[in-house]
């Protein structure tokens, strides 16, 4: 199993380690609920070094990326981030990712750990006659996520004044620890915060600096367990759960992240445009359980005693005080309609709710 540059720091901090996408990662330190609440109330520091960094450069970079994603990359201005997906010929999602425009003909793509190889192979396969360089630099970079309402204060205490910090959905190259590091104001928790890309050899130094400077703000290291409950409360998709190669962005409720009027061709456009006009065979819904049972990934959803879908994610929602989930159904239902989840041979009631389980604090484009 692969280890991030922060492996020793995790062990020292008392982390419980698990296998995630071939990486030995911290699932929790003090406890998932405590870590979750601390990110909502103060701040948390995550090791997300397993994620992939792929750079695209060359004079056809824009045309090439436009062909790979349903989003419109042309409107992306310098230093801006955009969320999008790689789609296949059927509109199915190969991965979801952030594209950062560093400057003209120079883009950084942050992709999921479990998909780095698939993404890279897909990108190489589709270079065709484009004049581009695609470089997978995942092995030389680590990534830390500093998330929570105190994140900006902590970054300031670490030496980056608030006025120099990037705005929401922007990235900045900043000098810290005698190195140039990339800091973007993005995240996966629904809170304000930063994702910091740093060379492997500087990762532990930065980790320790942020924990040290964050002490007065009650920072704590946070594992993948709370990362999952935080992102689920914020209804952010997880690849392998909500997203896969048999699911389109339309089905996944990601229409907001694509350009409905995109004129350029891209892979999967026919299917996606058809679904935008005529509807899709399944639809992602959010739901709240009506009792203490928890709907887990893979459980069946029933509507009027008929199997009509499946749960993609479910968990205790510490900030909401009930159990929530996401899942696909193949019928048209409305908010407040009742569905049932088959849990260990019994049906439990759940109510369809808005996917805005919580008020998010990371908006601000």
């Amino acid at each position, binding site marked *: 199993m692969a280890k991030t540059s922060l492996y020793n720091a995790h062990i020292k901090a008392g982390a419980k380690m698990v296998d995630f996408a071939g990486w030995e990662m911290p699932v929790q330190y003090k406890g998932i609920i405590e870590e979750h609440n601390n990110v909502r109330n103060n701040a948390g520091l995550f090791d997300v070094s397993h994620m992939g960094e792929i750079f695209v450069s060359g004079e056809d970079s824009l045309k090439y990326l436009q062909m790979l994603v349903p989003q419109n990359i042309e409107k992306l201005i310098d230093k801006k981030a955009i969320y999008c997906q790689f789609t296949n010929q059927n509109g199915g999602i190969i991965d979801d990712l952030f594209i950062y425009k560093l400057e003209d003909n120079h883009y950084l793509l942050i992709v999921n750990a479990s998909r780095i190889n698939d993404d890279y192979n897909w990108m190489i396969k589709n270079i065709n006659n484009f004049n581009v360089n695609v470089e997978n630099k995942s092995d030389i970079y680590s990534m830390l996520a500093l998330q929570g309402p105190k994140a900006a204060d902590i970054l300031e205490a670490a030496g980056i004044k608030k006025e120099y910090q990037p705005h929401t959905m922007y990235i900045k190259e900043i000098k810290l620890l005698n190195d140039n590091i990339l800091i973007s104001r993005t995240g996966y928790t629904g809170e304000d915060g930063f994702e910091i890309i740093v060379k492997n050899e500087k990762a532990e130094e930065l980790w320790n600096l942020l924990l040290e400077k964050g002490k007065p703000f009650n920072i704590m290291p946070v594992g993948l367990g709370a990362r999952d409950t935080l992102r689920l409360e914020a209804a952010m998709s997880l690849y392998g759960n909500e997203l896969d190669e048999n699911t389109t962005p339309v089905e996944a409720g990601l229409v907001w992240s694509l350009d409905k009027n995109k004129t350029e061709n891209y892979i999967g456009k026919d299917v996606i445009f058809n679904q935008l006009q005529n509807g899709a065979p399944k639809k992602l819904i959010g739901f709240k359980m009506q009792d203490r049972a*928890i709907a887990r990934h893979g459980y069946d959803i029933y509507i009027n005693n008929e199997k009509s879908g499946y749960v993609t994610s479910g968990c*205790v929602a510490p900030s909401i005080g009930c159990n929530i989930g996401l899942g696909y159904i193949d019928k048209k239902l409305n908010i407040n309609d009742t569905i049932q989840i088959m849990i260990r041979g019994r049906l439990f009631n759940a109510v369809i709710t808005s996917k805005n389980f919580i008020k998010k604090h990371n908006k601000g484009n």
Partner: protein
Amino acid sequence: MTVHENILCSKSHEYVYEENGNYNIGLTDYAIEQLGDIVFVELPEIGTSYTKGEIFGTIESVKAASEIYMPISGTVTAINEELIEKPELLNESSFEDAWLIKVSSNTFDEDNKDLIDYDTYKEEVE
């Protein structure tokens, strides 16, 4: 945390000990620690009979659901209602008052042959 004196443990991390002619069954501290924050416990109805090795309940942490197996055969005579209301108590201690069910059993002496005492159990899991 006090571990009951005559406690026996299974490989699947349940414990059992005799008390006033009944057998108290619960989960070891190691099992709870591995699960993390406990949020839900599902227990059987009183009067249900199980054979050794059968699933009698479920415990869920934030992260995952796990099944709980009978370390001996028996018939449920009581369930721990307090844990259904406050499953998080298991994170403080899974021993003492935090047994899950009580059962009556007349096969304890044969059923306990592959169970191990707590000290041996601790050595095996650590």
